[in-house]
């Protein structure tokens, strides 16, 4: 309140931001955003080839995003390494940012895992950084909107295009609008997305085009999230074995009391029931591990895929509202990466506790 006008005049960069927003409104008015083709399975960029061990293989656009994230992380690692090569230097720039992230994560691991923090932290931090990079990739302009053009088959919904010159095409709004004015039921058909019901009254859209984006965030692909979940849960088992030896597996296959039962001279009813309950609890633990994998995979996939569809819908329905949802997606991307890493940390920490410690881990099994 004391200096209202001074801060208003300062700051050249904020005027650039305002200009970009105004430009966005104008461009969005001319080239009206359209909703792209929504597909759960990742699109293939190259033809399918037969490889010796892997089998059928095709480069999908979600794999491209993982490669980009890997390259970004490796470059960041090199930058951090160069910044810390000189002893006593204060890191700045990229190294400073990564020092902040790593320090916060390490403090978290230290308070949660205690003496096991050094073993658990690399796995957790790797998962966090990879998922973070992949999640935030959808905020880059051009991701999911630039790609190969392909003609949709008859009976599906496509969009008309116009040429921009050298092998480049852009969505042509003119024909679509004229088609809108001509027929009323076309607008209904547009809202229904890809499911083309009115094939008869849809001659204008018959030979439309769609794009296969070059880059699509890998967290919208079940292969990525499921493999990451399997890696995390396998890491949990490995940490458990390192902490408790092979006795860790008595958590799942608890036949100890069952075998001990037969050595007793007198067997009461209670002595017979309790070992069976132990075996049953072990089976429940085994099922809980599988449920954790599914929970891990579908949480990340659901949030990110729904976020992508939300961005598509908001971008195609309203002109400028998508910017706000981009901020929301930034938030969700960071939160989901944090949750994935945090749950890995917590599960690993629980695996390091000795099995005889009782039932203190039930609170995390409730999902």
């Amino acid at each position, binding site marked *: 309140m004391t200096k209202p006008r001074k801060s208003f005049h300062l700051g050249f960069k904020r005027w650039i931001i305002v200009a970009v927003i105004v430009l966005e409104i104008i461009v969005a008015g001319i080239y009206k955003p359209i909703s792209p083709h929504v597909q759960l399975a990742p699109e293939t960029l190259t033809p399918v080839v037969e490889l010796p061990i892997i089998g059928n293989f095709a480069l999908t656009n979600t794999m491209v995003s993982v490669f980009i994230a890997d390259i970004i992380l490796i470059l960041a690692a090199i930058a951090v390494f160069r910044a810390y090569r000189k002893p006593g230097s204060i890191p700045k720039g990229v190294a400073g940012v990564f020092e902040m992230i790593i320090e916060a994560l390490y403090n978290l691991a230290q308070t949660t895992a205690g003496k096991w923090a050094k073993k658990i932290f690399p796995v957790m931090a790797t998962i966090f950084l990879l998922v973070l990079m992949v999640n935030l990739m959808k905020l880059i302009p051009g991701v999911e909107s630039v790609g190969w053009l392909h003609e949709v088959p008859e009976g599906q919904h496509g969009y008309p295009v116009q040429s921009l010159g050298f092998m480049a095409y852009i969505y042509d709004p003119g024909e679509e609008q004229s088609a809108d004015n001509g027929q009323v039921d076309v607008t209904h058909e547009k809202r*229904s997305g890809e499911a083309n019901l009115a094939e008869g009254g849809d001659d204008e859209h018959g030979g439309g085009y769609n794009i296969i984006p070059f880059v699509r965030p890998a967290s919208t692909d079940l292969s990525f999230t499921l493999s990451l979940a399997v890696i995390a849960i396998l890491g949990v088992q490995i940490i458990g074995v390192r902490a408790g030896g092979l006795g860790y597996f008595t958590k799942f296959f608890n036949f100890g009391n069952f075998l001990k039962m037969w050595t007793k001279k007198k067997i009461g009813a209670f002595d017979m029931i309790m070992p069976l309950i132990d075996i049953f609890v072990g089976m429940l633990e085994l099922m809980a591990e599988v449920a954790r994998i599914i929970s891990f995979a*579908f*949480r990340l996939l*659901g949030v990110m895929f729904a976020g992508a569809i939300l961005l598509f819908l908001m971008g195609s329905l309203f002109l400028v509202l998508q910017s706000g949802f981009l901020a929301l997606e930034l938030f969700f991307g960071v939160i989901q990466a944090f949750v994935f890493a945090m749950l890995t940390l917590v599960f690993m920490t629980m695996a390091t506790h000795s099995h005889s410690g009782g039932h203190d881990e039930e609170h995390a099994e409730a999902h």
Partner: protein
Amino acid sequence: MEFNEFFVEGMKLLAAGIAMIGTIGAGLGIGLAGMGAVQGIARNPDAAGAIQINMILAAAFAEAVAIYALVVALMMVFVA
């Protein structure tokens, strides 16, 4: 039995909508987690950091249920 394809499409959308009813429970759960966290922080502001982390974990568990419902709904619309 043979159904009209419009009927099938409409039923798919209706099923997707019904599947999202499951998010009521997740909303309640996240609300309870937030309520507990805010009350805890109000009583003991020093423990805000630890409470926040646990609250985010609990909210993630509650949210997972909503996301299962969302995945079912998305499959109804886009896959099935």
